[in-house]
């Protein structure tokens, strides 16, 4: 954003050759006419603030104190109320003529017209006041100077054409008159050549003032944007978490129950049917075994999504279930009091179960140590195995997915895995999202 503004109103001239620069500031160039039109269009708006205030006093100048104070207050209020439309017209002008976009300021632009008056403590309001009542008039003077330069230049440069009408002191010294006309013409040409530079300078000053005084403060704007993005991200993460839970519930209520029922019926058939041909019985037995395997697979899949016990009893309970399923010696220590937000718990659960899956798949370890501790507002998850090490976070999709999920809640992910081991995965998560 900053660079765009810079290009529009500032001086991106450093990289441009003097010749190009001179050409750009030629009296006939587009940029010159745009600058002139821009600064000229600002004049009525820039004088408007004081004009509105002064208008009341041209009608009536009271002599007594009370009406004096009343009139002063009224004119002041009128000036302040005019600030908002003036500001938005100024922004429109910048956008229409320079393509320069100046964002709105919530403290100043939002709410009813008189809200800006109540926000008098806001720096935004004071910057706007500064533009319209202090800087603006100077800019208008600059703009008038620009116009005067153009006009004086034009009059003088063409003075030869009406030289006959000009007074000359001595009818005998025609040559002196001619010299004077020549000098004046030359001066006019110089003014015409100078006018574009004046116009550009005033345009630059005006645009800069508009951006810094009528738009939001860069730092404040960025801060707001960060807040906004953080909020959006949190809601996206929460939505994803909710979706995972929904899928888990759907699978649990649907496919899983059906499969159990199918396996039950096959089991019943297997045990109770008699007089079935051997081949048919073989098919039943195979189908029964398949159904049971499918159940196990589905169960593992669902549990990886979002176990009900996590919501219900917290990380300790959920993780002991995970640890028990790992065919290794797992030392588990979970101390999370008070509980973290449910999204963060879900991430911590995912981290441990993914890390353990990785250990089983790749580490050739015999023992794993898992600790999940709450330290203030941070949830620290450490998984250490005594395996062969050499885990590459850029290699496997497991570790990348893990890191990504941790980052989604603003957590940090570190892995230390020298060749020969041990491998330690350390994850820190903010407890509240």
């Amino acid at each position, binding site marked *: 954003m900053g660079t765009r503004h810079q290009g529009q109103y500032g001086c991106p001239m450093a990289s441009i050759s003097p010749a190009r620069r001179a050409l750009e500031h030629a009296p006939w160039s587009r940029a010159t006419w745009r600058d002139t039109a821009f600064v000229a269009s600002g004049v009525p708006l820039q004088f408007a603030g004081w004009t509105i205030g002064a208008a009341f006093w041209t009608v009536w100048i009271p002599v007594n104190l009370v009406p004096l104070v009343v009139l002063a207050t009224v004119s002041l209020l009128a000036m302040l109320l005019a600030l908002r439309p003036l500001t938005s017209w100024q922004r429109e002008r910048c956008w229409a003529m320079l393509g320069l976009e100046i964002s709105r300021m919530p403290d100043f632009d939002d709410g009813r017209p008189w809200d800006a008056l109540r926000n008098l403590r806001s720096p935004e309001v004071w910057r706007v006041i500064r533009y319209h009542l202090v800087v603006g008039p100077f800019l208008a003077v600059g703009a008038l100077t620009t116009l005067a330069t153009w006009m004086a230049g034009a009059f003088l440069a063409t003075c030869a054409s009406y030289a006959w009408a000009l007074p000359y002191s001595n009818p005998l010294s025609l040559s002196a008159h001619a010299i004077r006309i020549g000098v004046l013409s030359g001066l006019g040409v110089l003014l015409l050549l100078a006018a574009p530079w004046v116009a550009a300078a005033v345009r630059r000053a005006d645009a800069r003032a508009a951006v810094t005084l009528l738009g939001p403060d860069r730092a404040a704007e960025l801060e707001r944007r960060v807040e906004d993005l953080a909020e959006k991200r949190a809601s996206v993460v929460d939505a994803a978490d909710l979706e995972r839970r929904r899928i888990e*519930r759907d699978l*649990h*209520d649907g496919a*899983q*129950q*059906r499969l*159990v*029922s199918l*396996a*039950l*019926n*096959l*089991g*019943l058939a*297997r*045990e*109770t049917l008699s007089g079935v041909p051997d081949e048919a019985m073989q098919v039943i037995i195979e189908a*029964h075994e398949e*159904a*049971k395997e499918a*159940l*196990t697979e589905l*169960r593992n899949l*669902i*549990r990886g999504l979002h*176990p*009900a*016990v996590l*919501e*219900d*009893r917290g990380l*300790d*309970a*959920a993780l*002991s*279930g995970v*640890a*028990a*399923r790992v065919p290794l010696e*797992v*030392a*588990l220590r979970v101390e999370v009091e008070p509980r973290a937000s449910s999204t963060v718990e879900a991430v911590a659960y995912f981290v441990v179960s993914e890390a353990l899956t990785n250990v089983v798949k790749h580490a050739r370890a015999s023992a794993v140590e898992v600790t999940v501790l709450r330290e203030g507002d941070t949830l620290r998850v450490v998984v250490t195995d005594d395996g062969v090490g050499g885990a590459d976070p850029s290699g496997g999709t497991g570790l990348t997915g893990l890191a990504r999920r941790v980052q989604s809640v603003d957590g940090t992910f570190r892995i230390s895995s020298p060749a020969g081991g041990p491998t330690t995965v350390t994850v820190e998560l903010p407890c509240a999202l």
Partner: protein
Amino acid sequence: MRIVIAEDSVLLRAGLIKLLETSGFEVAAAVGEAEGLLAAVRQHRPDAAIVDVRMPPGFTDEGVRAALVMRREAPEVAVLLLSQFVEERYAADLLSTSTSGVGYLLKDRVADVSVFLDALRRVAAGGTALDPEVVSQLLLRRHRDPLDRLTPREKEVLALMAEGRSNAGIAGALVVSESAVAKHINSIFAKLDLPHAEGDHRRVLAVLRFLDGDT
């Protein structure tokens, strides 16, 4: 034997009823949520109740909570919890009241009809039936007590005891002789500092010690 079923999936409820009735059980009532279960138990006084853990309205652990109420109100009614996932924490809750007449199995186990019916009969007769997966979870969480002194083999034996198996059953499962099992059990009793008493009572104590963790 009279059974009450609480299972919210209509399909599975029908399957369970069919399974039990073809196997000679009497299904006194089959309901879809926890409140109905408590009412049915009060009304029918069955020998055992088969209870799904996850039921309406919350779909979390309604079954476990209903089972706990049942244990208090009607301790003579055995409870067999069924769940898509076994959780050590739920088992600990359930077993904290008493270890007789309770069971906790993965729902998948109903597919192995005879094993499931055995477990049901065992629970109804006042025994325990814990899913091997629950047992391994419980073992994992009980590192830091006298159980640490047990050898891996002894832990296996103890786990099978917790599942409710007899010495012969344990011997069959581990493919060892019954006398070897008895030796292991004696060693377990010694390591857990269990007082001398009648065999079965000590057995229960060992299982209790095993289950009595940081619940």
